[in-house]
């Protein structure tokens, strides 16, 4: 009787997800291994043999790695600063970090088009200051994508780290200092290792997010394709659904491998925390 009630509560949601998510995704993945009714890996072999495809994959990985590292380097100190503030100031800064996160990615990418464009804010100010002679070509390059992606994901890593850091007992820092550590040493030997779990979760979110982001590369990347815009191009423009499915499967695989590896790393680096 109780069991029945439980199923009745869970079943509608489960059925809905199965029908509209699990089956479509599973079928998309399965379809890549079959062509005209027989098992094949041709799609993948084709993908791996084509330097153009590989180049896109490589660019995507590069952009994602740089974005992730930049987010960590920029986000970590800022998160530490925020986590040490009093509740009022902390609340305000957190709100200011969350606001861009909730703002449309179209709006955020568009703002960088205004700034980075040929006649954009950056170029016009640099020109008028006489620092450059002709406009820099930033928009529609991987650099623009990276800037846009860092802008997109930096808040995510900041708020994740603040969440972890504010739970670190402030007495630990005092203990380290009383044992002879300078503020910086205490930060390095106490805060940094204890932030590792948050750092890993944050890095997964940023890395997977950059790897699969669509809007920002579509707007800022110009002709430079990344794997997500490439998927869209194959599906909609080129109408090559088999190839699009192969790319989709590769994206899912990379996502899950990254999450799996990072989780392993997290347990390894943090056996007792």
């Amino acid at each position, binding site marked *: 009787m109780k069991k029945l009630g439980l199923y009745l509560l869970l079943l509608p949601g489960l059925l809905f997800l199965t029908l509209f998510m699990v089956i479509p995704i599973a079928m998309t993945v399965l379809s890549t291994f079959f062509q005209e009714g027989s098992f094949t890996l041709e799609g993948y072999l084709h993908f791996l043999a084509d330097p153009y495809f590989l180049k896109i994959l490589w660019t995507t990985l590069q952009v994602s790695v740089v974005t992730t590292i930049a987010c960590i380097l920029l986000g970590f100190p800022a998160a530490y600063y925020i986590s040490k503030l*009093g509740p009022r100031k902390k609340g305000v800064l957190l709100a200011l970090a969350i606001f*861009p996160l909730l*703002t449309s990615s*179209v*709006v955020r990418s568009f703002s960088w088009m205004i700034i980075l464009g040929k006649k954009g804010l950056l170029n016009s100010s640099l020109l008028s200051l006489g620092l450059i002679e002709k406009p820099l070509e930033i928009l529609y390059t991987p650099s623009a994508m990276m800037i846009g992606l860092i*802008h997109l994901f*930096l808040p995510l890593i900041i708020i*994740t780290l603040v969440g972890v850091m504010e739970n670190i007992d402030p007495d630990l820092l005092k203990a380290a200092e009383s044992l002879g550590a300078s503020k910086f040493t205490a930060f390095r030997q106490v805060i940094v290792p204890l932030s590792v779990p948050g750092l890993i979760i944050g890095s997964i979110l940023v890395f997977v997010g950059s790897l699969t982001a669509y809007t920002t590369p579509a707007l800022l990347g110009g002709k430079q394709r990344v794997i997500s815009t490439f998927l869209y191009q194959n599906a909609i423009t080129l109408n090559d659904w088999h190839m699009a499915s192969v790319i989709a499967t590769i994206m899912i695989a990379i996502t899950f491998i990254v999450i799996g590896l990072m989780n392993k790393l997290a347990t390894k680096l943090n056996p007792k925390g």
Partner: protein
Amino acid sequence: MREKNRGLALFTFLIFLFLLGPLLIISVTSFEPGTVLKFPPQGFSLRWYENIFEVEMFMETFKTSMIVSLAGNLLALALGIPAAYALSRFQFKGKSLLNGVFISPVLIPGIVMGFAMLKYVIITYQLPIYAGLLVGHTVLMLPFIIRVIASSLSNFDFAIEEASLSLGAGRLETFFKVVLPNIRSGIIAAVLIAFLESFNNVDISVFMTGPGVSTLPIQMLTYVENYFDPTIAAISVLLMIITAIFMFIIERLMGLSYFTKR
């Protein structure tokens, strides 16, 4: 008493300048009177705000976005509240697996989900595009609804439920009269968060366009590819105002800790 670290404070200030500056620039340029985006603007005008209401495609897609996000939200609530309740209230075998399944839509890359839905929901199941959009956005919102409501239920003392049962109320009556009122702010916050996720979504919607059907972000994306006038800046400002209001309400309802917890 708190140690002052000027270097770190300056660094953090620059980070926030980087995060918020572009949004500020967009807001300022939306008042540009000319036809080309400029910073600083050459004057002050609201003509591009007026233009939003004159471009029919913006009004059409705004309507579609609203309908899809609101109807999808209701559907996600209908599916999500019972699931969140079951997952918080009961201990049973396979619970963590089910938890994973309900949260999984956020793990699958959005662009992959959009493509898979186009392939199967639109083509194979032959749902109309409008319905496909609705279904896609419901799937998208479900994990947010479940997560926020479950966290709200985790603060709920289920002994109150037993008290209600012992006083003679039925299970369903208890749920509506005792449980629901106590997690009301969680539900409202869930609705707002899910709404923003859906309303801003590009990855799924970009595959679900057809004759006369598209959402506002997709329309903006197309517009930006062809025009560079300040209309998009004006729309952006309106969207940011909505976002700010939503965020303020969410903060009032349950603080900001939802965002910092992972």
